């Protein structure tokens, strides 16, 4: 169905950047402009989800040009679920950034927050491979700026590492796209399905797609391209960590799945053989690294890498159950990790330190923060009845159904490692007697964390509908006929 909705979040993101820079010099107008655009974006993506819920596919042809020449913006169930997740996490991050003394100069930081969002919505709703590259670059560039803007040595170092690696990967992606075009004569994702059957040289095509996937798996922090993540996600100011760990890595995962399953199933099968072991290694290795961290935000950053291993392990199977698990896990992990980073930011505000072993006596200082941290950590560790449990169960069930026992074992070990680490951290923080006078927990920031944890609890209660939505998205993505018909025309 023709509709301008899929391109609107992107345009509102750009509009937000321009309006913040034009009108946001003083705090009150800045807040008004930011909330106006943020709520508009949130409303639009929720509307997109509502319109695509029944299986309708919304298509906007940019400039009125017909694919394969023109660029289409497409919203199906799969992309709208990711769009809503990104918008929710970004709204929380924006709320946190408006309260955060670290997020100054506020006007420019807010402009970057809208730029990174524009890039993410563009990447999620685009129907064109080269356009995907452009938007991956756009949110990449904004994220280096967001990591580095405080300009002190650790920020700059983390941003330089992150930028160098991502830029190298995106040069490879560019060459991969060129090579895909040379072999298929199209860059429209919907047209790649037919073009990928009967190629002159399938191995060469596989190599081209591998080049494209390198850049996307780097964004998703898949082993061996994960090592920038702990630096960037832990050094960044808290509001930025929320959006990086909650949303940006998910767009990497989305891109991998979208590119793979736009093709004929032979490609997903071939790539899955490589992707599944890498995802399992990421899950275990990063969980192991997370276990040894005394820096709370660094623990959260490593656990993000570990959890992306779950998402991609599910997605790499190429079955309905696997992709359903990837979708469900992405949504759950986004909210859980966003709430945990908000908690870490509030705790850092009290103790002036990010080391959890120096945060003794939190239960006496701020019971609400301690309870929030408990619920979020339990969801991260996958304790029923919280959301994290059903996400993990979905991934495990998908792996068991395909008989991938070794990967299943790896993921169970990773879960137990994270569970132990999370328990240790919470006990270390909550227990003990409070020593010395410390500032009180920031109430407004705590409200952001509590709101996110409330969402996690809601997701835990509403697991049934979430899994149904994941299933519907997976069926539509794997079938692909409706998508191709909507984009290319009958």
């Amino acid at each position, binding site marked *: 169905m023709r509709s301008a909705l899929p391109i609107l979040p992107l345009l509102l993101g750009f509009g937000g950047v321009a309006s913040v820079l034009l009108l946001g010099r003083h705090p009150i107008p800045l807040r008004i402009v930011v909330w106006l655009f943020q709520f508009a974006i949130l409303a639009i993506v929720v509307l997109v989800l509502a319109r695509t819920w029944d299986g309708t596919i919304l298509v906007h042809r940019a400039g009125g040009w017909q694919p394969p020449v023109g660029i289409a913006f497409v919203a199906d169930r799969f992309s709208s679920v990711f769009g809503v997740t990104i918008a929710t996490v970004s709204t929380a991050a924006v709320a946190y950034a408006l309260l955060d003394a670290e997020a100054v100069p506020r006007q420019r930081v807010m402009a970057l927050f809208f730029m990174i969002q524009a890039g993410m919505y563009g990447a999620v709703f685009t129907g064109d491979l080269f356009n995907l590259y452009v938007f991956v670059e756009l949110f990449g*560039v904004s994220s280096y700026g967001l990591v580095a803007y405080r*300009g002190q*040595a650790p920020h*700059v170092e983390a941003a*330089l590492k992150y*930028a160098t690696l991502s830029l190298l990967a995106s040069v490879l992606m560019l060459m991969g*796209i060129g090579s895909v075009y040379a072999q298929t004569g199209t860059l429209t994702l919907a047209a790649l399905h037919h073009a990928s059957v009967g190629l002159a040289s399938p191995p060469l095509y596989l190599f081209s797609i591998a080049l494209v996937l390198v850049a996307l798996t780097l964004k998703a922090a898949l082993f061996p391209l994960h090592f920038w993540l702990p630096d960037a996600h832990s050094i960044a100011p808290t509001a930025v960590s929320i959006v990086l760990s909650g949303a940006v890595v998910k767009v990497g995962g989305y891109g991998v799945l979208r590119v793979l399953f736009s093709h004929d199933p032979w490609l997903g099968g071939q790539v899955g053989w490589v992707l599944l072991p890498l995802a399992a290694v990421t899950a275990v290795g990063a969980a192991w690294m997370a276990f040894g961290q005394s820096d709370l935000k*660094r623990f959260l950053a490593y656990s993000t890498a570990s959890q992306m291993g779950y998402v991609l392990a599910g997605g790499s199977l190429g079955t309905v159950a696997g992709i359903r698990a990837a979708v469900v896990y992405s949504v759950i992990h986004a909210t859980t990790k966003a709430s945990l980073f908000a908690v870490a930011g509030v705790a850092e505000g009290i103790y002036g330190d990010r080391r959890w072993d120096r945060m003794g006596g939190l239960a006496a200082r701020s019971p609400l923060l301690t309870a929030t941290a408990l619920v979020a950590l339990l969801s991260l560790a996958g304790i029923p009845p919280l959301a994290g449990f059903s996400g993990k169960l979905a991934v495990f069930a998908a792996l068991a159904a395909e008989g991938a026992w070794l990967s299943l074992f790896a993921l169970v070990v990773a879960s137990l490692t994270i569970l132990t680490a999370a328990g240790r951290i919470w006990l270390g923080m909550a227990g003990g007697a409070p020593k010395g006078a410390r500032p009180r927990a920031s109430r407004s920031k705590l409200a952001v964390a509590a709101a996110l944890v409330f969402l996690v609890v809601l997701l835990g209660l509403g697991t049934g509908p979430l899994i149904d939505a994941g299933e519907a998205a997976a069926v539509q993505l794997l079938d692909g006929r409706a998508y191709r018909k909507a984009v290319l025309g009958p």
Partner: protein
Amino acid sequence: MSWLLCATFSVLIAVGIFHLLQRDAIRLVLGFSLLLGGANLFLLLCSAFFGRRAPYVVHEEVGGDPIPQVLILTAIAIGFGVTALLVALVLATGQQLETVDLDEVSRLEH
């Protein structure tokens, strides 16, 4: 003349990767620019090896494919932007740490 383009492409990529592997952050930026140049040339090669004429509407015969050239233009613009950002980051590194040696820059705990 596509063999000449292929050779140039190979040299650009090889020299670019060589510079990326050095410890000096400024050579990293230079290496990255060379890689981008190589990637743009690769996009051109993807279209040019059919040996057709330039994609120009006035010609009566079938022209070459215009899409790779559009891609190259976009890639040049993006490459320019990200190179400028990388230079800014290296500059900030130099100002903060008084070194652009990447081994000395690596001070974050692991």
